[in-house]
């Protein structure tokens, strides 16, 4: 039944928004991190979304042809903030440079919180779509009773 394709589309939306929320939580957690595996302070990460044709669980050539116009979403890439780290004068800090400045991540918690709210709203919208489609599928099944 073709309504199941709608469920996979919404599922891709749920996964993408969740991935984005995870990155934003990571940013908030690392707002003061001065040491990373790659060296230097932590850099703010963000997800870039791209739409892609949906792959249904029971995909056949015919179904793919009929649903070809439906697009789900995926995380295309994770970008790091290219801006220079913020320098703070902390001469006593172990990571301070010769002049006593420490490189801190350039993270604005307000910016991340607003993005996080957007991700949560997007997630909720996809959950609403899943439950509406599920209800329609139930109604169709009830026709058999």
């Amino acid at each position, binding site marked *: 039944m073709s309504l199941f394709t709608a469920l996979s589309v919404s599922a891709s939306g749920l996964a993408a928004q969740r991935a984005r929320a995870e990155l934003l939580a990571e940013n908030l957690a690392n707002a003061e991190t001065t040491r990373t595996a790659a060296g230097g302070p932590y850099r703010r990460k963000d997800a870039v979304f791209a739409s892609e044709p949906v792959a249904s669980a029971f995909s056949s050539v015919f179904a793919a042809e009929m649903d070809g116009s439906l697009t789900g979403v995926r995380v295309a890439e994770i970008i790091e903030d290219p801006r220079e780290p913020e320098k703070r004068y902390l001469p006593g800090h172990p990571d301070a440079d010769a002049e006593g400045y420490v490189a801190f991540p350039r993270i604005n918690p307000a910016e991340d919180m607003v993005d996080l709210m957007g991700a949560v709203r*997007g997630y909720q919208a*996809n959950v609403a779509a899943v439950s509406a489609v599920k209800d329609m599928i139930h109604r169709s099944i009830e*026709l058999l009773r």
Partner: protein
Amino acid sequence: MLEGVGRALERYMDLLAARQKLVASNLANADTPGYRTRDIDFQREFYSLIEGAGPQPVEVSGLPVKNDGNNVSLDREARLLAENALRFNLASNLLRARIRMLRAAIQEGKQT
């Protein structure tokens, strides 16, 4: 045996399902840069007699475009989501009444 109203209801439900899929797709891509809202022209598709040909999605015009080239409106999609579910509910109840009527005719015929 379900000609006329039954067939129309079936087509109506098919179109609602197709539309609901596009709404789900629009909602999933609410944050995708450059994505444009898509929908089907419900009236035209319903009256079009070309059976078998799937509904043609078209881009919706007149929606405000955000800075990233995306024009998905969560409010519009939420409204359509609820509206489609209700319409589908109504159509499925009507269709079930038709089927029940048919079944009653078969059952009553058996008893005499």
